[in-house]
């Protein structure tokens, strides 16, 4: 493997692993605020205990998110030095703002939330939960703003030596790319948290313990989840797709497996891209839907890969295509699961319907897969660019860090994260097993 490939794996591996944790904590922060709000409104100890239980799960995940997140910021400098040198003046702004505005907020109030319930009183404790939520969602915003600039660079000019000079700070923060991507991403985090909470609730009901809590968890997560899964598809997913159609048409063509420019383009449900023949094997399609989704006209022409020079194509089209289809496919299934559960909840049958409880208990890994596939779609779709249209990925690495040194640290991270995963699963399982009944001192 050459150095470029290893640097790419290095970032991809560490960021994919890292994002397993924030996607839960960002969503869970919202659900904990809801539980604390209920506690405050009803004055019922039951909701406080529920919130405390989820705060423990949150704490473990947050810790994992922090320790795996610090390497992300550093890797811009260590593995992508040429990129950092050129673009640091721009994206360093949003990354530094994340540190100053959200991490301090988040860590301060999380400390208060976890260690200060008695001293703070119910309102103060609710407020600290709210601030943790705000901090984590702000953090998401700055990261998305950073990514959005790499997807769709704005507010800059090129200097005499080709360096990238920031000219408009507000354009950077209010990049037209940010809005839908941010909402899509954050609601994706809510979906993960809802499925995790529902899985724990279903687990408790099915195993006949902590059943009161199991019901509360199911009720909160299914109500929020039913809304969130729909919002994922429309308007956020739809809005993001339209942005892509306008600004990265070649990415759209690759994602959809559209090799030839087509009038009234179909949407592909299944089929495997064949990169030798440049076609899809055994495609299963619905005619004209892609044209409608992208341009709101059934007969619109959608550009295929053949409309673009080959050096502009994403460099791993099959993986991009599969990531995108896994994300959309799972997203559709999530809507169905949550809609069914919400219907049963409304009829008062959810707590007794064992097949659906089994389904909810076993479904929780899939939102993680869908969120990961979503990020893979965004990042593979941007290839071969590191900054879209401005800097190629191959031009961004650290020139003085050899393949061997990069492989050494990649293997180190893999080993360490394997160990972390074992510990993490062990601890989370213990907490769930232990349940929310009594407070551990």
């Amino acid at each position: 493997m050459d150095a470029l490939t290893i640097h790419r794996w290095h970032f991809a591996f560490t960021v994919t692993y890292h994002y397993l944790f924030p996607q839960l904590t960002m969503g869970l922060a919202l659900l904990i605020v809801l539980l604390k709000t209920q506690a405050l409104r009803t004055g019922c100890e039951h909701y406080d205990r529920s919130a405390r239980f989820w705060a423990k799960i949150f704490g473990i995940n947050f810790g994992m998110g922090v320790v795996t997140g610090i390497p992300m910021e550093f890797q811009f400098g260590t593995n992508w030095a040429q990129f950092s040198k050129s673009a640091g003046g721009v994206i360093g702004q949003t990354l530094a703002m994340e540190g100053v505005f959200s991490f301090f907020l988040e860590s301060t109030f999380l400390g208060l939330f976890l260690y200060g319930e008695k001293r703070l009183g119910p309102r103060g404790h609710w407020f600290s939960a709210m601030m943790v939520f705000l901090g984590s969602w702000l953090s998401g915003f700055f990261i998305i703003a950073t990514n959005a600039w790499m997807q769709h660079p704005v507010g800059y000019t090129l200097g005499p030596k080709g360096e990238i000079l920031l000219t408009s700070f507000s354009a950077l923060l209010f990049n037209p790319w940010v809005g839908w991507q941010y909402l899509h991403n954050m609601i994706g985090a809510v979906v993960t948290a809802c499925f995790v909470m529902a899985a724990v609730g279903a687990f408790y009901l099915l195993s006949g313990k902590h059943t009161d809590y199991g019901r509360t968890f199911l009720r909160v997560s299914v109500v929020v989840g039913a809304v969130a899964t729909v919002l994922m598809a429309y308007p956020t997913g739809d809005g993001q797709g339209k942005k892509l159609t306008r600004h990265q048409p070649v990415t759209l063509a690759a994602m959809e497996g559209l090799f030839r420019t087509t009038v009234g383009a179909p949407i592909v449900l299944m089929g495997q891209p064949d990169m030798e023949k440049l076609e899809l094997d055994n495609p299963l399609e619905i005619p004209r839907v892609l044209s409608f989704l992208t341009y709101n006209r059934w007969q619109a022409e959608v550009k295929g890969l053949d409309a673009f020079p080959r050096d502009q194509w994403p460099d791993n089209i099959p993986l991009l295509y599969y990531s995108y289809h896994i994300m959309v496919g799972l997203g559709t299934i999530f809507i169905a699961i949550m809609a069914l559960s919400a219907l049963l909840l409304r009829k008062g049958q959810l707590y007794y319907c064992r097949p659906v409880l089994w389904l909810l208990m076993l479904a929780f890994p899939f939102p993680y897969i869908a969120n990961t596939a979503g990020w893979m779609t965004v990042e593979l779709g941007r290839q071969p660019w590191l900054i879209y249209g401005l800097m190629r990925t191959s031009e961004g690495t650290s020139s003085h860090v050899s393949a061997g040194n990069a492989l050494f640290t990649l293997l180190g991270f893999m080993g360490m994260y394997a160990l972390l995963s074992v510990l993490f699963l062990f601890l989370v399982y213990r907490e769930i097993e232990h349940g929310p009944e009594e407070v551990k001192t």
Partner: protein
Amino acid sequence: METLWYCLVAIMIAMYVVFDGFDLGAGILHLHVARSDAERIGVLRSIGPVWDGNEVWLLAAGGTLYFAFPLLYASSFSGFYLPLMMVLWLLVLRGISIEFRNHVEGPIWKPFWDGVFCLSSALLALFFGVALGNVVRGVPLDASSYFFEPLWTDFRLGKEPGILDWYTVLVGIASVLTLTMHGALWVVLKTEGDVQQRARRAALSLWWGLPAITIVVTAVTFQIQPHIPSRLNSQPWGYIFPLLALAGLVGMRWFTKRSRELESFLASCTYIVGMLTSTVFGVYPYVLPSNSDPELGITLYEAAAPIYGLKVGLAWWIPGMLLVTAYFVFVYRHFAGKVKAEEEGYH
């Protein structure tokens, strides 16, 4: 404007060392000063609500360095690739040892994480010192303003230095000693009874090492980086920084002897800030000196981002930092006083 940001980044790094320094030091010492499980929980409680926030200073300083001095960020992070990755691994280990320790009871789990916590804290303190030593000594920059250092070569200060040589290791040891002292004074401040007495005794005996190593490191540094003494001689007002360190050094012993806990901890903060600001003042206007040819060293003017970005940055940095100050004042007041054994807390 560039100089202003040079100072601001230096302040943020100093804040990181002062804040995270005490929990690193507490980590190094806690096996020694806290013997029973309850005592160790006490020490962990004293840093529990704040260590995460303290570590954010590192991230915030890193981010600020990134946008204000992109060339420095790119060059130093890729050049110090190996030790930085190890710092990251240590930060991961240390973070989880604090977070995971109290989840499981038993004779294996807790002592294991206590050991990890101690070792990772000590190695981090060492590595941060080594990093400072590397910057002061200078690095083998080439004409493209990049470099790469192996972990070690022959431990000498030749043309091809490694991250570890006798000088950087010396600075590393000084850093471990300083932060252990800092942590001891924090523990004295935050605990009572046996733990406090042990920490106080440790602080008093450790103190003798500090003036000794400060003098040795300073003398050697003046030899290795003659830019520093020449800066001090050309701008004598800069002597205020070493004097600050000296005052802190004396104050630490003076106040510890008289059991003035808060004052002695603040004296330790003063010592750390004094030493760091002396270094920053001394290497100015370099941000990354070269070890061979001064011409190749990176100055802050070369490393800085264009003026627009620096101005805009100031517009959010100042209110941001005011907020951060408010949080810190609130949290440290909220958790002020001694750690109580029966305090709540779950995570």
